[in-house]
């Protein structure tokens, strides 16, 4: 029953969960720090050295806050909302190849929880149901700001999913597989997809911003208009879940972008340096995380650079710019494939 494979998988799952949560936690810290730095401030620096314990303090604060459930809300759904948001956020990490094969105690393992032959679609599916957490929460709050936020979230996510899917299609056309592992493996060395699909990448990353509700597309929760949007009525750990989910999403989105376009765990000259395969694997993990961190940084960088879109601008960008562009990208890719074959 307990094959080494299974044990390894369990360990991996636990590890991935832990790392994900940890990174999400420290993303909040990173966010504040980076925001501060970009604004020539210092950011949190009181809790621990450089404020390194700030996330813990925030967490404790979240737990200690009073649980408020609005009177007129739908109780069950009100609680279900953040749970769903958290769950869907965590689900995607299951198919990300964290590294190449690693040999331990004579067994070879994949540093990936599961290799679906339709992994890319899995990502897509999980993203697409991610909106339920927001919608249910927003609706159950029985508050007009929450409802508006939820509506914005749903239409925004549906709109950008299309362009995202089209961008992915172009990628799939050039890679010829839907499996994340195979996509990653095909980018060995420095054959990253970003060089094949620059336009696709651009579209994808813009859509990724929209899908994670990050600035400049953070309309569902934009404070100036909707005083927090779908989580206006939330407090305590339920609010924490929502915020957490956003950072987890960001982390996962970074991981997906890294894997799809930036070679995943591959790094330049990996096979030319005469390293053992385990070393390559471990270095690969390190490189992957480096890429992920870069993208998390990138997310924040953008957030603190670009102002928020207006809602109609958002929709115009999605429907009138990104989708035609993505279709053009597909045609272009097709033409190139046709020409080179």
């Amino acid at each position, binding site marked *: 029953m307990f094959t080494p494979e299974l044990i390894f998988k369990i360990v991996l799952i636990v590890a991935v969960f832990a790392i994900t949560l940890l990174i999400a936690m420290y993303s909040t810290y990173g966010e504040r720090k980076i925001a501060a730095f970009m604004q020539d401030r210092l950011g949190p620096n009181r809790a621990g050295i450089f404020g390194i314990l700030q996330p813990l303090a925030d967490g404790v604060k979240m737990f200690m806050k009073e649980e408020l459930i609005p009177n007129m809300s*739908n109780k069950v759904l009100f609680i279900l909302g953040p749970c769903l948001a958290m769950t869907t956020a965590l689900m995607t990490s299951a198919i990300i190849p964290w590294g190449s094969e690693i040999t331990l105690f004579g067994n070879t393992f994949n540093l990936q929880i599961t290799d679906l032959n339709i992994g890319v679609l899995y990502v897509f*599916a999980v993203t*697409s149901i991610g909106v339920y957490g927001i919608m249910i929460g927003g609706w159950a709050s029985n508050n007009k700001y929450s409802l508006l936020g939820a509506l914005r979230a749903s239409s925004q996510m549906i709109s950008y999913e299309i362009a995202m899917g089209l961008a992915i299609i172009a990628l799939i056309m050039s890679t010829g597989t839907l499996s994340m592992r195979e996509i990653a493996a095909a980018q060995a060395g420095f054959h990253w997809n970003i060089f094949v699909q620059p336009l696709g990448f651009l579209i994808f990353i813009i859509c990724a911003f929209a899908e994670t509700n990050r600035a400049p597309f953070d309309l569902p929760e934009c404070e100036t208009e909707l005083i927090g949007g779908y989580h206006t009525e939330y407090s305590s750990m339920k609010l924490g879940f929502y915020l957490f989910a956003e950072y987890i999403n960001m982390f996962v989105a970074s991981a997906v972008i890294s894997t799809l376009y930036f070679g995943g765990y591959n790094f330049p000259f990996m096979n030319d340096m005469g390293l053992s395969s385990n070393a390559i694997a471990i270095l690969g993990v390190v490189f992957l995380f480096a890429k992920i961190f870069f993208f998390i940084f990138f997310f924040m960088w953008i957030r603190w650079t670009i102002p928020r879109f207006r809602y109609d601008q958002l929709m115009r960008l999605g429907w009138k710019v990104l989708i035609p562009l993505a279709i053009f990208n597909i045609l272009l890719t097709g033409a190139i494939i046709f020409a080179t074959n």
Partner: protein
Amino acid sequence: MIQFLFYFLSFVAVAAGLMVVTAKNPVHSVLYLIIAFFAIAGHYILLNAQFLAIVHIIVYAGAIMVLFLSVIMLLNLNNDNEPAKSNVLKLAAAVAAGLLLVTFTGALKGTESIIAAQPFDDQIGYVKALGKVLFNDFLLPFEVSALLLLSAIIGAVVLVKHDLK
């Protein structure tokens, strides 16, 4: 184990389906329908149709039901003010649906002998196999479905857009 899964998923699907029909609040109906869809997706996986399952989730759960939910929210229909139909009508509806079911059950007789299970090809649910069928045998339908989607888009725009012309 697998059999248990089958029956479990079936139970979930039917129960959720029943709730869709009977729930007073449309939002609850939507949520139950989503549950039913997930159960059906589970069935697809049991049938080795993973691609189908995932597309099912993307399309139904990810897009269609979100649209439903957002329309219900947009129109603010959460108050269940639907006046009940008279019991006679309810009974008639139930009887009609029941009769349909009975007919199907009757038609089931002897199915096993008609449809002998073929030697099972576990590759058909894969993207490669499906893609080959889709783009060889079913190329024309694939292409004409563009007409369908385009007209749906035009329709959605012209019907709801505020200021035409």
